[in-house]
Structures are given as structure tokens and as C-alpha cells.
């Protein structure tokens, strides 16, 4: 398969891994944060930790939109959908995320009209096809998905579709990175920058990480070779004592971003003064809300929203895991009370969440391979 297989070529991967081993100083320990949940998923799925030397530690960042969404927002969205004649539409990612009284999927099993959509425009299509129903699109995502929500709202307004609203949970990546860098227990040497988000915002917004925080950052793609190559680029910068923003994912990410997408976002959205992030708390100017000109399509203004706040169980250490202070398995609940089937913390819900990825792909392997004695049977 083109554009995929080239980046999974075993020979190139082995070569790049050798290069990493050559560049990494055996005397030091490296902590690189992959900001994006897509990277976390790839790292586990392709078993990249097996390929890397032991002194390169990958720390999983906050870039999983499902994981950072507070439970109260899910409760709010579902409470709107509990009103008669409402269709609740969301990405598949959202379907298993637990609210206080169950996930959207569990609400569906109890009779709520819940639909999985592939894009916001599919939700708008639902509204067109069901004129006697209200379609609520539960929007989540960073700058990756925000432009398509914006374009859908522009279209809904242009076509005058009144039975469509968006419950907006879009967040922005830069304030989250800043929150992590401001955290007193932060011990990150460099960043693997998010690929999809950068397709929209470009590479410029990361300039301050290199210039002010003096940390290298390399925007990377999602294939095994992309991730390994970005680690080579980070190690080279560190060897040369440089702190730069570099773009490994040039085949997709333009340095200046996507102007059309940014324009659509600017037309529809404005920054919220503050927004709550699960595990990180309130972060100022870190999320988007719908502008007054589109108020009619804003579910938070069309419906009465209870504004539920749910505190995470005290024992769950999602925040520490999200900031890279703890490894998933170091959380007290990991694998016991909190599993992908019964997630307590949000990081266990999405397959991009570091806990779920670690649980699915890694922790039993770690537990069992340590017992390997080399005895063959």
C-alpha cells in the first residue's frame, strides 16, 4: 500500500534505529514527549520501544482529545440528547467514553438515538435527512478536527439548516504544551511535535518552545519510520546543542499551515477565557467556543446545559500520567480497577490514551517477557 509501506520498510527502520543508537550518549537518559495521542498509539502498535535503546524514554503527552475531556462535558452533551427528538452524533472515539451514567454507547443501548459519524458534515447530512429531529454534533478534537466543524457550521448557516447544533469541545494544543512545560515536576528534554495538528497550524506556533524554553521540537508523521527519524533529528539537535523547530513530516505539513482551515476556524470560533482539561485542570485560553454570529447553531446556547462538573476519583492519577510524571502502570488503579473495559480515568478510554495503549499492547508483554528464561520447548 503506497504512502504506508515505504514508512514501514524493515531495512530502513533497522538502519534508523542503528543511527539512533549511534547518536544517543550511553551516559545520559533522554526523555522525549510525544505530544500527540496518534504517536502514542503508533509507538505501541508498532512496538517501537523494542527498537529503541533503553536510555531513550518516550513520555506520552496530552494530545488525545478524548482523554482530556472532563466527564462533566460528556454528561452535559448527553443531557441535551435526553430531550425528545434529539439525535446525538459523535465520532467513534467518543462512543465508549464514560459519563456519570454511562457512555454514549450505553445510552444507545438504553434507547437514545446515538449515531457514529465519520465527519461533522455527516452529522449535518443527518440533520438534512431528519428535518423533524434535532441533530446534536458532539465536537471534539484539537486543531485537527476543528476546521471541519467550522466548515460544517458555515455550511449549516448558509443553507439555513436550523435543526443542527454543535456542542463544542474543541481545544488547542499550544496551551496544553505550555501547561506541561510550566509544571514544576516537568522533566522533558525535547518534543516530538503533533503531525495532524501541525497540518493546520503549521510549525511557527512552536517557535517559543525552542527559543524561550530551549527545547528541541520535531513535528513528525505517524509511521514507524517517521517517529524514529524524528528521534534522530532530536538527538542531532541535542548533540549540536541546538534548539530548533524542525519538520520531519514535510510530505503533509506545510511550514505555514493550512490558511483555508485557519480562516474557517477564525470565522466560526473564538477562544474561551478558560476551559477545564481532565488531569490538567483549568487552562486559560485553551479551548474554542462558537462566535455570536453562529449562536443559533451553538448547542450551549440553544439548549439549557446543566454545566455538570465531575471530579475524577482521587485515586486516579491521570494528571501525573498526562504530564509524563508517572508511567501508566505506576498509577494505583492501572490494570486493577481501571481497564479498557471499565475505564475510570480517561486515558484508559481511547486507544490513543496512553493507559489504554499501554494496557493493550505492552503491560502483559512486560510482565510475561521478564519471565522468559530462554528455555525453548
Amino acid at each position: 500500500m503506497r504512502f504506508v509501506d515505504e514508512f514501514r520498510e524493515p531495512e530502513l527502520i533497522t538502519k534508523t534505529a542503528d543511527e539512533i543508537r549511534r547518536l544517543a550518549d550511553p551516559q545520559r537518559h533522554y526523555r522525549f514527549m510525544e505530544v500527540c495521542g496518534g504517536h502514542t498509539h503508533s509507538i505501541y502498535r508498532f512496538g517501537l520501544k523494542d527498537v529503541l535503546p533503553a536510555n531513550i524514554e518516550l513520555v506520552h503527552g496530552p494530545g488525545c482529545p478524548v482523554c482530556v475531556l472532563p466527564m462533566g462535558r460528556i454528561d452535559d452533551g448527553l443531557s441535551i440528547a435526553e430531550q425528545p427528538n434529539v439525535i446525538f452524533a459523535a465520532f467513534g472515539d467518543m462512543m465508549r467514553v464514560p459519563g456519570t451514567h454511562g457512555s454514549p454507547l450505553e445510552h444507545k443501548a438504553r434507547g437514545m438515538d446515538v449515531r457514529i459519524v465519520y465527519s461533522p458534515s455527516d452529522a449535518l447530512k443527518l440533520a438534512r435527512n431528519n428535518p423533524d429531529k434535532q441533530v446534536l454534533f458532539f465536537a471534539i478534537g484539537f486543531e485537527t478536527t476543528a476546521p471541519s466543524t467550522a466548515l460544517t457550521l458555515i455550511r449549516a448557516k448558509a443553507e439555513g439548516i436550523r435543526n443542527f447544533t454543535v456542542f463544542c469541545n474543541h481545544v488547542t494544543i499550544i496551551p496544553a504544551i505550555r501547561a506541561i512545560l510550566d509544571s514544576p515536576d516537568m522533566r522533558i528534554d525535547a518534543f516530538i511535535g503533533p503531525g495532524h495538528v501541525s497540518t493546520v497550524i503549521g510549525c511557527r506556533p512552536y517557535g517559543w518552545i525552542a527559543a524561550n524554553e530551549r527545547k528541541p521540537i520535531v513535528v513528525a508523521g505517524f509511521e514507524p519510520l517517521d517517529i524514529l527519524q524524528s528521534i534522530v533529528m532530536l538527538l542531532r539537535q541535542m548533540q549540536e546543542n541546538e534548539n530548533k523547530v524542525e519538520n520531519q513530516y514535510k510530505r503533509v505539513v506545510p511550514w505555514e499551515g493550512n490558511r483555508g482551515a485557519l480562516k474557517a476556524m477564525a470565522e466560526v470560533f473564538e477562544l474561551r477565557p478558560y476551559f477545564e482539561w481532565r488531569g490538567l485542570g483549568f487552562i486559560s485560553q485553551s479551548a474554542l467556543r462558537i462566535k455570536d454570529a453562529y449562536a443559533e447553531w451553538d448547542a450551549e446556547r440553544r439548549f439549557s446545559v446543566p454545566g455538570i462538573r465531575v471530579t475524577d476519583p482521587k485515586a486516579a492519577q491521570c494528571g501525573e500520567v498526562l504530564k509524563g510524571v508517572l508511567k501508566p502502570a505506576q498509577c494505583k488503579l492501572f490494570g486493577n480497577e481501571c481497564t479498557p473495559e471499565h475505564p475510570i480515568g480517561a486515558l484508559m478510554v481511547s486507544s490513543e490514551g496512553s493507559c489504554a495503549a499501554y494496557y493493550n499492547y505492552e503491560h502483559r508483554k512486560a510482565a510475561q517477557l521478564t519471565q522468559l528464561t530462554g528455555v525453548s520447548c
Partner: protein
Amino acid sequence: MAHGAGGKASRRLIDGLFAPILFGSAPAPLGDAAHINVNGTCVALTTDSFVVRPLRFPGGSIGELAVNGTVNDLAVSGARAQALVVSYVLEAGLPTEILEGEVRAMATAAKAAGVVIAGGDTKVVEHGKADQMYITTSGIGHLIPGLSISPAAVRCGDKILLSGPIGDHGITILLARGELDLEADLRSDTRSVLPLVEALADAVGAGVHWMRDPTRGGVATSLNELAHDCGLGIRLAEERVPIRDEVRGACELLGLDPLHIANEGQFLAVVAAERAEAALAALRAVPGGRDAALIGEVSEQPAGSVLVTTLYGGSRIVDMLVGDPLPRIC
């Protein structure tokens, strides 16, 4: 809902509720069919309910699934289906032509599989109390001579064979629902696997230690069940698992693991290492078996789990599916 999706929750429902109450004790390893002694003759008996939306999809329909599914459950338990009985639950208002179409599809599939449909039952429920139609088929078959399969027969070093490309059925259904704006030239793989199973039995007989058709929950779930039942580890070589580009592409786009996607016309076999090449050659010689592949082996570790390895030395644990596979977008 997850309790019916074939993965972990289904397993828990069986182990935690059905087995203790219905069988009185912890069950023997769960096979695809029960083997029952009737007056000194051992027969295999199985049943399966079919619920699918849409009823018709590229490559098949619910009627064909209902016949092939039960024929296959018998086949992978080492039995040749002799007769099926069928039970329909129909939603009031279902157009007659849809019902007739499915009955004809069943007749055609039964003929192709060499099985008789010997009887049946019909119930109609109020409009809205069922989704168009559900079909249950139960099948009885006699054991294929020379085969003796059970997780207990599986040994370290045994090879794992797969009859053909995975994921065709599950991805076809996902796309046929029309909820995703994706199109691909794909067809469900629904078919009877009996000719392939018989070829395998002829070629290596007792060298076959275990078989399973990886339907809901996919190859990953079936192999996890095996790992759990035999207490050994399964190691899969990712690059050896046959999969069409269309299925891979759809899985890449939707963030799904092809190893979790349902199949309706494939089966997995664990074969003694020294008979593996003969088994593979036998499968490949049968029409529809050309893409059969040796995809991995049984090992001591990781006990009870499935480990997938890549050509460049990475590896990951692949668990059973939890619930239905859901597309990942954001």
C-alpha cells in the same frame, strides 16, 4: 451490547453465568460445537443466531451467513454438517420479497455446502420490536474421521495456519451501512469452509490440533481464546497475515486493527510443526485456498496471550476485542 460482540464480555457472560448454571460446573474449553454421544455414535451439535444490518451486502446476505456460519462452526469442530433447522424471528411488516430472497439465499447456500435444511419455525413480533429479521440455525453433523481437535492437543512449536485474507466481511458490512463516506471494491467472504477443512483432514489428519473460524472479534479474539484455553503463548508474524489492500486501507483510515475484524469464510488451524508444510500445500490446492498462509506458532511465552511481531523486531500484545470495533477519527 458488548456481551454479544464475541470478545471479552461474551466470554465473561459464558464463564460467569451460562456455564455454571447450565452445565453445573466450569466448562471444558469452549468449542464451536458440542460433541454428543447418541447410542454409541458421536455427533456434533451447534447453534448460532444471525443479526446483521443491512440484511444484504456485497458478497452475501443474512440467509447465506445463517447457513455458512453453522456449517463452519461444525466444520472447525471437526464435523461435516448433515442437517440444519432454522428459526426466523420476523418484524411485522417485513416485505415478503425480502423474506423470500433470504429463504432462496439459504437454499442456495445449503446446496453449495452440501447440507439439508430439515425443518424450522417462524415467529413474528410487533413492528419496532425487532430489526427486520433475525435467523437462528442449529446444525448437526458427523465427525470427520481421523480428526481429534482440542486446545489440550496444542503443543509448543505447533504452527498456526490461516485459510485466507482477513477482515473482508467486517469491513464490507461497515461500509455497506453507508454511514461512512468510504467506498471500496470489497465483498464479504461468507462461504462454507468445509472443503478446506476436509482437505486439511485428508492431508494431515491427527496432525491438526485445533481449529476455529474467526468470526466476531476476528483472528485476535480466536487466538486469545486458544491461548487462554491451552495456557500457552501465540506468536504471530504480522507480515505473514494475508490481508487485502482495501481492508488494510480502510483499517488504517478508521484506526481499526484488522486482527479484530470479523470474517465469515476463513478459519484458523493449529498443526503439528512437522506437518505444517503438507497442511499448507493441501489448503492451497483447494479452490478458494490459494491465499492460505502460515502466520505464526505456539510458544511457551507469553503464556495466555497473543504477541504480534514485526520484521524489524518490534512487538505488541494483541488482546481480545472489547465490544465492537469503533472507528477512530480525532
